[in-house]
């Protein structure tokens, strides 16, 4: 319950503050969002598995976002930014799907 409130607080704060993303960070935003979603769904699944750990959650979130952004940055420098972005999205997307499927099995037993 409380984590959901945290998420809502973040969204409301975002809508109120209207944070503007600096131009240099804009290419990394979509990838960061996907990475953050991966960490969140991983956390929810761990919670349902009964092995949630706040430190692991925070570290996985931060490392996901930073590594994803770094890969995109590196790709941009090497001229293969879009390909590496696609790779990151594919890997994280598969993980998100698998985790959501596990969450679904936990919640609906189906």
């Amino acid at each position, binding site marked *: 319950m*409380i*984590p959901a409130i945290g998420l809502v607080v*973040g969204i409301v704060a975002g809508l109120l503050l209207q944070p503007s993303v600096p131009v240099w960070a804009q290419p990394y935003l*979509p990838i960061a*969002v996907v990475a953050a979603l991966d960490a969140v769904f991983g956390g929810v699944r761990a919670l349902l598995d009964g092995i949630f750990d*706040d430190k*692991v959650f925070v*570290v996985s979130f931060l490392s996901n976002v930073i590594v994803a952004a770094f890969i995109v940055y590196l790709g941009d420098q090497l001229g293969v930014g879009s390909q590496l972005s696609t790779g990151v999205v594919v890997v994280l997307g598969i993980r998100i799907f698998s985790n959501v499927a596990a969450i679904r099995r936990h919640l609906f037993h189906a």
Partner: protein
Amino acid sequence: MTTPRESSGRRLDASMTLLTEVMERPLDPGYEAAARRRRERGEPPAKGAVRSPLTLLTLVVVGLLLVAAGLQARGQSTVLQRERAQLVKEIQKQDAAAAKLQKSNAKLQEQIESDRALRLQQQAQGGLADQVRRLGVATGAVAVVGPGLVLEVDDAESVNDQSGVNDPRAGTEADDGRVLDQDLQVLVNGLWGAGAEAVAINGQRLTALSAIRSAGLAILVDYRPLSPPYRISAIGNPATLQARFSDGAGGRDLQYLKDNFGIRASITSSKNLTLPASSGLDVRHAVPEGGVPGAAVTPTTTGTTSGRSGSSSLPTTQTGHQEDQP
């Protein structure tokens, strides 16, 4: 989860360890490792971890991130739309302004021409006035009337079906069925070669200084964009113009375009065509031999108001600056 195994014990999908890893262990291994450490230390499972401030803070950041990304995506599209609308408006405004200026320019040129004719008349130099007007006809500086033919070409029907709009300025894709600037160049050259004395495309008079070229998908004549259908009006001997054009390179090219690309074309002869004066006939640097450099003469002449015809062999001059009418 079971994994396929060969009799030797080697996994069939051993070469795809990365994908297997991603598919079979989507959960961060850290969670399991942390749980194992707790068990080893004899601590109870981390029940309160969900409510820890760390988790809460991270989720707040996640929420902020989502909103920022959403706003970013939405803001970008609206900014693009706004800029596009602004550009379209600006283009339309400048287009209208250019048309207005051209109109007033034509009117002024007409005024100048009539004043000059009157003055030359008063100075008893009627021969000079006639010469000026005859040269004006040949150079395209004055509007002319006469018999001739109208050649109307249009893009193939498939082009219009695809793009939905009959305006090349709105389209973005190149297409085989489109009339190109080089097609118009060949057709116009064919008309000149067939003995045309004055040619205009969509009301733009062609002179020795005219350029038919393309910018994007639009065809420009004297840097004014045209939209199809393209009406090429040519004044010339009505008895021979059409036959000579059809037999020449221009006619052959037109037939080729019709047969191979489906370009629509029609030729109609007309007894009374009116071609406007050219609006772009300004000479800034060229001077007659023996003249004074820097004092270039500008042949600013349009039709005269007098109804006298300069020569029976040449088309008569006209007052109006209007579209050609068959």
